[in-house]
């Protein structure tokens, strides 16, 4: 059996292993107790610059305390004992919840000592305590408590000069207490023994001026607080000093660990640490009080004093300080955005509906105007058709008859010249072209703005709707002039529409009188002309007669509507509306066109198309189509959609801005929240 390493006595085998019975018996001898005053000294707890701290127990009250005995080395120095007493007196005067109090003091065999409460929580340097201060908020609260204690000491003219994790103790309730003011000195009393000066401070925890042995100010403790902040900023708090290399490696002042520590506090912590750790004391916080104020501001999510806080930082602080308002914004902003967008959508719908209604009224009015215009044309044609001189142009043999005529041979092919059109002259100004065809469809006379082509006289026009329609009307007992379908002129290739009437001589149908107008941009209609602009316009549509399918025949297939009056329509260009619109127009106004009395105002309601696409201008238009009597022609009044809904754009922009802001805010906040949650989980 091995002997005891202390007394060399034989060890005793017990249920708890080998024990030294001799030591146990000696420890039980009351006369062997190590008494310091009324305290029995038990266990060394730590060594300071000026004294050794022991766990001790009061012999009468059994109170367990920490007892600091002056070091023999100190007492050997001149004035060492006085310095120890002075420091004890100084510490006794510092009564603060976060400063370790001195309960009493005394002297034992010439060795002064002070008695302090035992801090069962140990020191901040102990790993067991790091877990208790794992969260950024807890660490910030800890630092704030320490800084307040230092501020308290500063306000009483006391510098600590040896602030480090080993000197931050925790009581049973885990309240931090700054301890070991062993190196503390009153401001303005720079003289301290050489021993203390040499031992003073701890490497790695001293300010530059303290390391150089210069006179100290409160800024020196501020530097130590900055180091402590940096030390706490480590990912995992461990014991050990903050090395210069560590400081130099990160951003010059060792700030980057603070970002890992607490992203949400990072900016503020960095700013505080940066200022506290300035090499020049003049550049640091002037006192712990200023540092405390900034820490409090950071804790209460307010901008730091004397620091240019970026706008996002201010916004973040504000949101943290006013969670109710923040949540209200998060809730109300999207709600406002939704309501505003819904209002904008409703306003747009109303605006479209309103514009369509207005256009429908306008289209009805314009259709009536066009109908009256058509009636004017028809009246001219009717008057001309009743003129015997005009009738005579169609009657009688061809000027140059067929030399060897025969059945089946087109008589028009042999004609070489037209009749003199003097009889048409009085009626010609109303039309682009006025012409007389005989019963075969051969041109007999013509007055036109366009010069006749050489083969005009040898052509047959019996397939034209203006001839075929009029010839059909000739068989009717009524003598009615009709507006015929639009067509492309075989002479000028321009799009025209015509009014025609059958010609009779002595009750015998002899031919057809036709007055044609050219499809233009305005048709020189004054009432329509005024309404033309790029955002709102009136358009005249007419049924197109289709391809040549022979005399007295009706073109097969759906009705094709061509533009006859349009601001952007060039002469000779055939532009038709899309098939869907044409089919819809055909369906809507079929009943009205079935009425043979063309110039009567119909009862058909205008057709509204909120998604009409203009074939010439493109884009979305709000179109209202109104039938021109029973002519088959249609007046369209259209307003560009973007122009119609323009009044709602303001509301829409507000709604979109709110929605954008909401989305941005929620995205940023959500991303930050998720990122923070991951950080917390990782921690």
């Amino acid at each position, binding site marked *: 059996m091995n002997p005891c390493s202390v007394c060399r006595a034989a060890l005793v085998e017990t249920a*708890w292993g080998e024990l030294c*019975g001799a030591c146990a018996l000696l420890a039980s001898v*009351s006369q062997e107790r190590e008494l310091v005053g009324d305290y029995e000294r038990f*266990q060394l707890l730590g060594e300071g610059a000026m004294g050794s701290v022991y766990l001790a*127990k009061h012999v009468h009250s059994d109170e367990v305390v920490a007892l600091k005995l002056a070091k023999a080395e100190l007492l050997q120095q001149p004035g060492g004992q006085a310095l120890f007493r002075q420091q004890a007196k100084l510490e006794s005067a510092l009564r603060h919840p976060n400063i370790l109090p001195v309960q009493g003091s005394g002297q034992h065999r010439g060795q002064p000592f002070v008695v302090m409460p035992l801090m069962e929580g*140990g020191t901040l340097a102990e790993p067991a305590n790091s877990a208790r201060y794992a969260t950024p908020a807890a660490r910030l609260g800890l630092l704030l408590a320490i800084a307040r204690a230092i501020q308290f000491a500063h306000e009483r003219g006391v510098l600590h000069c040896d602030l480090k994790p080993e000197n931050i103790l925790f009581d049973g309730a885990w309240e931090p207490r700054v301890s070991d003011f062993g190196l503390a000195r009153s401001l303005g009393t720079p003289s301290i023994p050489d021993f203390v000066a040499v031992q003073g401070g701890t490497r790695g925890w001293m300010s530059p001026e303290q390391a150089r042995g210069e006179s100290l100010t409160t800024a020196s403790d501020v530097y130590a607080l900055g180091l402590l902040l940096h030390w706490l900023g480590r990912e995992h708090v461990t014991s050990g000093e903050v090395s210069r290399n560590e400081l130099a490696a990160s951003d010059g002042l060792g700030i980057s660990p603070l970002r890992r520590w607490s992203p949400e506090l990072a900016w503020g912590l960095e700013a505080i640490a940066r200022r506290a750790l300035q090499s020049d004391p003049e550049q640091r916080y002037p006192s712990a009080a200023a540092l405390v104020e900034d820490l409090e501001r950071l804790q209460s999510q307010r901008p730091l004093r004397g620091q240019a806080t970026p706008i996002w930082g201010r916004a973040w602080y504000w949101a943290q300080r006013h969670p109710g308002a923040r949540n209200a914004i998060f809730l109300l902003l999207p709600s406002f955005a939704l309501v505003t967008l819904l209002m904008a959508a409703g306003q747009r719908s109303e605006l479209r509906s309103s514009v369509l209604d207005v256009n429908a009224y306008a289209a009805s009015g314009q259709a009536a105007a066009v109908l009256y215009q058509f009636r004017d044309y028809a009246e001219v044609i009717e008057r001309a058709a009743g003129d015997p001189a005009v009738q005579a142009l169609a009657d009688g043999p061809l000027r140059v008859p067929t030399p060897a005529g025969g059945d089946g041979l087109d008589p028009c092919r042999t004609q070489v010249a037209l009749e003199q059109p003097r009889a048409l002259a009085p009626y010609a100004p109303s039309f682009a072209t006025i012409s007389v065809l005989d019963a075969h469809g051969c041109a007999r006379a013509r007055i036109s703005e366009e010069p006749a082509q050489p083969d005009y006289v040898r052509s047959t026009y019996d397939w034209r709707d203006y001839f075929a329609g009029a010839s059909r009307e000739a068989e009717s007992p009524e003598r009615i002039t009709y507006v015929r379908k639009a067509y492309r002129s075989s002479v000028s290739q321009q799009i025209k529409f015509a009014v025609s009437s059958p010609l009779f001589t002595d009750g015998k149908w002899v031919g057809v009188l036709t007055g044609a107008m050219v499809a233009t941009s305005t048709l020189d209609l004054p009432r329509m002309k005024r309404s033309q602009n790029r955002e709102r316009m009136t358009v005249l549509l007419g049924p197109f007669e289709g391809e040549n399918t022979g005399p007295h025949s009706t073109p097969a297939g759906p009705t094709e509507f061509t533009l006859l009056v349009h601001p952007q329509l060039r002469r000779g260009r055939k532009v038709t509306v899309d098939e869907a619109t044409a089919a819809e127009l055909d369906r809507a106004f079929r009943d009205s066109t079935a009425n043979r009395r063309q110039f009567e105002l119909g009862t058909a309601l205008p057709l509204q198309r909120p998604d009409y696409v203009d074939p010439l201008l493109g884009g979305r238009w709000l179109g209202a189509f109104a039938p021109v009597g029973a002519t088959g022609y249609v007046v369209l009044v259209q307003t560009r959609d973007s122009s119609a809904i323009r009044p709602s754009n303001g509301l829409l922009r507000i709604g979109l801005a709110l929605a954008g802001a909401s989305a941005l805010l929620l995205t940023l906040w959500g991303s930050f929240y998720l990122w923070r949650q991951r950080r917390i989980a990782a921690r």
Partner: protein
Amino acid sequence: MAHTPSAANPTRWSLILRAQGSGADVRVALGELLNHYERFVVWLIKHYGHPPDASVEELKQEFLEGILRRNDIAKLDRERGSFRSWLSLAVRRFLMNEWDKWRAASAGRKGTAHVELEAIGLSVPADEVCVREFASHVLSRALSQLRDESRDVQRFDALARFLPGPQLDLVELGSLADALGTTQNALAKAICLLRARFRELMREAIADVLNLDRAPDPGPGAPPPADLLTRERVIDDELRDLRRYFWA
């Protein structure tokens, strides 16, 4: 602090010397001395083993009466060893005689008696070792009692081996605190309180062995009475005396 065994116990020997003297004080001193060692004698009888035809109490009485009758105390020489060793040797011889008597009375049990006597005469350790075992017995009993009082048995088991020893150095204290998931100060306090209570239990055990009366409570702040101081000194002497045997 002395860590070497003292050659003699002055307090114990002053009592012995009083018992060796003359006059009325002799009987008192002798009575006090035997009273103090009465339980040690019991422990020795149990430890060595005794014939089955007599109880421990009967043998103790017979032994003490023999000492008084023969005035053995008067023959004690301080230079020849400790009183406890002498007492241990005396008990052993007494028991051997008792075994002889028992053998003579019971011839059929001769073989068994021989075995028992050999156990006493040959296998039993020296008297110093026997006293050390007695001290170890007191120590273990105090630790067991402390364990019974402990609210955290596991924690006690982890700390028990540190109770009798010297104070821990800071490195040892720190590593033990880490292992137990506590702080150094909290651990030091726990050990301190256990040590203080262990000391109380040890002293009570010694007081019990010495048949000392319970210590009177002087009351808070009051100076301890003289008999209390004497009692504490007697216990201290006994502890020091027992301690010497660990170097035997």
